[in-house]
């Protein structure tokens, strides 16, 4: 693969597609978008195939200093690879989900979606901190537009909220980035920044500035309130990308920047992360329990699931970090699929009110089955992707703090309650109105989309090694970077025979395998 700039090509394909869309008819734009996203999926598969597990940390690198200040520097490690795979996998499904449900201004819609794909992929590929910033922030612009133009009745308020939160965070992050580049005398290359030891005092401020941005994207409590509104107003495909990929930017940011660049600050401020995450798990799960709108319920559950990511990342051990990464991937698939499931019935009934449905198992058995698969994945049933991530993240957090693990584990009880309650009211029971009872089952387009996700969810649940292996050495490098800063655990084991001090777990086994 040497020499062929596959990453640039992956970024270029959607842009070309977007331009082509603008000059096409509605149905032409649909096909162009589908082909462009499928082409990127194909390139992604080639990328995964070509990626050498245990090889260089940064592969497929490209470096071109064309911009003067910063460089067109691309390159991926295993963590980025997996998130790129998630993005390119979900994109064609989003295009399919918008196939019939978007009727107004189709070419523009498809163009925005393709631009968004470029931006998201760019975030994971960028190796220059300013290039990263551009992708990171600009990727939200198409999302504003998608919500603002094709959204529901309250779309203006929702996109406004979305804007305000992200605006606040990104300004602080930009300031921090400027400070960092100043400190390194103009070196904007991320792999260099990753091994720079910033002064202890500055780390705290830098960490907080990055935290402001990432916490909003995550989203963490209490800056989560934009998410339910954005989801409710967004069209189905917008929700899928929002939950599937955009929410992962925060977690990716924590892993790529906060943790390795400011390890001491991370250890010092870990209580912020733990505190907010625990509140999020209990608080948003309880809120999800009383929702009447399907999308709002799933949106709140996303906040709770993302809290498993943050506690995993800041557990300072391998299980926690790998768990957080798998939660990111599995949540991307599962919540995306759940939003698609909402979209399926929304397209037929044009309401998201849970009470309007019921008894769908009668007339939509295939839908009922797939919805059940994703419900179970969401509650973390072993054998699905949801379990592997949650389990690793929690076992890692137990090593960090038994208190955190105990509170976070209540999430598995509450999660089961709100998801099964939702499933009961929508799929089981008796039909509450004739329209719902007359809805046809999945059409082939929906079948393929949901079926494909279901297969990957099971694959990740039964043989997660495919997904863990590419990330293993990168997590190892992260571990090596932060190991010395790891905070003390409250679960210290004391054996009388040895009178040994606190047993150190797995941080010792941090190196690359």
């Amino acid at each position: 693969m040497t020499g062929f700039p596959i990453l640039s090509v992956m970024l270029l394909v959607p842009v070309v597609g977007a331009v082509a869309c603008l000059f096409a008819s509605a149905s032409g734009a649909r096909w162009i978008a589908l082909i462009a996203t499928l082409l990127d999926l194909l390139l992604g598969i080639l990328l995964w195939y070509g990626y050498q597990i245990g090889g260089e940390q940064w592969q497929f690198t490209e470096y071109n200093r064309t911009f003067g200040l910063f460089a067109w520097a691309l390159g991926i490690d295993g963590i980025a690879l997996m998130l790129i795979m998630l993005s390119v996998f979900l994109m064609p499904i989003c295009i399919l989900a918008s196939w019939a449900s978007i009727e107004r201004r189709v070419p523009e819609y498809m163009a925005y979606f393709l631009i968004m794909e470029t931006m998201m992929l760019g975030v994971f590929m960028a190796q220059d901190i300013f290039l990263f910033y551009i992708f990171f922030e600009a990727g939200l612009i198409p999302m504003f537009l998608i919500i603002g133009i094709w959204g529901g009745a309250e779309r203006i308020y929702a996109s406004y909220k979305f804007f305000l939160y992200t605006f606040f965070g990104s300004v602080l992050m930009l300031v921090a980035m400027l400070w960092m580049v100043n400190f390194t005398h103009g070196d904007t290359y991320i792999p260099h920044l990753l091994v720079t030891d910033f002064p202890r005092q500055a780390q705290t401020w830098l960490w907080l500035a990055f935290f402001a941005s990432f916490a909003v994207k995550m989203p963490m409590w209490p800056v989560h309130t934009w998410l339910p509104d954005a989801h409710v107003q967004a069209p189905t495909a917008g929700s899928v990308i929002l939950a599937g990929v955009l929410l992962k930017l925060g977690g990716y940011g924590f892993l790529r920047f906060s943790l390795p660049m400011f390890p001491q600050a991370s250890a010092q401020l870990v209580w912020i992360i733990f505190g907010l995450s625990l509140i999020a798990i209990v608080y948003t799960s309880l809120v999800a329990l009383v929702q009447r709108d399907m999308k709002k319920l799933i949106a709140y559950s996303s906040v709770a699931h993302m809290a498993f990511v943050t506690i995993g990342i800041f557990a300072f051990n391998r299980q926690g970090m790998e768990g957080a990464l798998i939660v990111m991937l599995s949540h991307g698939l599962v919540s995306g699929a759940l939003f698609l499931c909402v979209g399926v019935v929304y397209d037929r009934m044009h309401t998201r009110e849970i009470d309007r449905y019921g008894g769908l198992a009668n007339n939509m058995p295939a839908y009922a089955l797939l919805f059940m698969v994703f419900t179970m994945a969401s509650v973390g049933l072993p054998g699905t992707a949801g379990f592997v991530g949650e389990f690793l993240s929690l076992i890692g957090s137990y090593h960090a703090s038994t208190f955190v693990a105990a509170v976070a584990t209540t999430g598995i009880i509450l999660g089961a309650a709100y998801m099964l309650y939702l499933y009961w009211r929508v799929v089981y029971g008796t039909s509450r109105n004739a329209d719902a009872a007359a809805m046809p089952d999945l059409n082939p387009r929906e079948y393929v989309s949901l079926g494909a996700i279901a297969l990957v969810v099971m694959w990740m649940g039964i043989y997660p090694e495919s997904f863990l292996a590419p990330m293993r050495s990168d997590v190892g490098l992260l571990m090596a970077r932060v190991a010395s800063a790891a905070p003390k655990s409250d679960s210290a084991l004391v054996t009388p025979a040895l009178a040994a001090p606190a047993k150190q777990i797995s941080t010792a086994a941090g190196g690359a395998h």
Partner: protein
Amino acid sequence: MNVLLIVFLPLLAAIVAGFGNRMIGNTAAKLVTTGALFGSLALSWPLFIGFMTGAEASQLHPVLDWIHSGDLQVNWALRVDSLTAVMLVVVTTVSALVHLYSWGYMAEDDSQPRFFAYLSLFTFAMLMLVTSDNLVQMFFGWEGVGLASYLLIGFWYHKPSANAAALKAFVVNRVGDFGFSLGIFATFLVFGTVSIPAILTAAPHMAGSTIGFLGQRFDTMTLICILLFIGAMGKSAQLGLHTWLPDAMEGPTPVSALIHAATMVTAGVFMVSRLSPMFQTSATAMGVVVFVGAITALFAATVGTVQNDIKRVIAYSTCSQLGYMFMAAGVGAYGASMFHLFTHAFFKALLFLGAGSVIHAMHHEQDMRFYGGLRKQIPYTFWAMMAGTLAITGVGVEGVFGFAGFYSKDAIIESTFAAGTGLGRFAFAIGVFAALLTSFYSWRLMFLTFFGEPRWAGSEHIQHAVHDAHGHGHEHDDRPDAEDAGHDTRPHEAGAGEVPTGTAGYHPHESPLTILLPLLVLSIGAIFAGMAFAPIFIEPESAARFWAGAIAFNHELAETAHHLPLIVKLTPGIVMVIGFLIALQVYVRRTDLAGRFVGQFGPLHAFLLNKWYFDELYNVVFIRPALWLGRIFWKKGDEAVIDRFGPDGAATVVRFGNVLTARLQTGYLYTYALVMLLGLAAAATWAMAR
């Protein structure tokens, strides 16, 4: 190889039947699933017999890598030793018979492929549970059976009560899983592995160590064992986490027999036995096991004495018998515990399936107050139920012959006495009293159902059947989903004597052969399983050989239990007879007595009938506050505080500043793009000027 087939045949069958569903049709789906189960059955028994004769040894079959993360190495693998072999025959035998039984019982149902697919899926998950080599795979099976249980309790999904019961079962089990999960986390922290053999080897070395948990310091092994035991309490419906089991009777009766009597609910007992060397290291944890088991045995037996729904009586009986199993495990008599699990599977499945046959005959009426005199109408069912009753009450004569329960339950009661500890004596006393209650409620069930005058006229189900048959002559709805366990709107105060008598012209019909055949096989089990298998489970010498380290078999305890004073050995038998006589007096000879008792001890009766008010308590303490908090957080937290002082507040400020143009949406966008570009421009300028 055989082990792989035993475990994966049911999975394949479930996939074929589940996805084939209406395409392949009822008969194909039933043939595939039932065939697969009888295949597993045919392979399991030789394996078990191999362990009995000593021809087979403990074995491990790797299947696939699973979760590898640093030190945490979890693989899919099947482990078989004598303990697993016992579970294999229990699970495959009962499951295969229940599959067969369902041919008859579910014959009128619309979605039979779905039902059989769920049954087979359940069997697969249960087999994964019992063959697990590590705690995480055990958790996989644990949750898998929970899923199957959820799906089957809610099988008739149009009934609100079935949905509620299914949801309750899943969520209450999740409370147990909360403990189980933390137990696994702690195990991994302490031992650095989740492999069961490795943990069991290392556990004794950890005795005396302490560990931090939630800011306190605890004895390491006590903490781990109790956390894991919380999981067992959820699955095995022990007091506090038992509330889902009676409601689970909403599921079709074959499901109750398979999942909620013979197999899934015994998973907790299996877990404690599997991890017995670990539990042995903590006297405190063992004490907790005994105590919880004893209290549950007592609680469930008292509640069982007053229930009117035939399935609920048996459900509480199950709960109570599970308590016995934990009592035995808690005093270290794991052999007796597993023995009771084994015999109980046969006679309890028999009682449930027999009850199903009665319900089938009585046109879905489940209230025993509207039964009576069925002995002659459905004689085969009667004799099968009689075998089950003789087994559960433990009828037998030492050294001559006894029904299954005579060997296993008496072994438990004797073991608690032989343990010689204070808690052991406590368990003994409760065990004896609960045995009296067991005898009473079991015979009460028999007398109300099969003896006395028919009281069918009062039943709405029967009236409905008679009306349909004689009235307009249209096809009556004969689907068994008319089962409505526990949602009894009729006044509870009515004693058995006050119900109008008479047959209302109804003629109960004996069940078809597919139903009677499983009853026959299970009857043989209920009669002979105790006598035939006592040597390998509990006899000191032969049992030690059989278990061969699969459980922490306590040879000394078994020896002591064997040589207890005669009076101790006779006690369970004596109380059993007393229970029988009371039931005989109250429900056959003086049928007015029950009503008079209720009149005299109204509050006590109400307390028992309402199951000690656990559901009401939980509703007030957990469910309502959770919903209330959810609403508060949503309306007051998110909307009234965060949004008001966050984005909405900012919006107000911004509006005053008159910054935004009228076209809001693009206004934000331009501002955003502008800020971003300005920022980058500033960065560029600054970097160049530097």
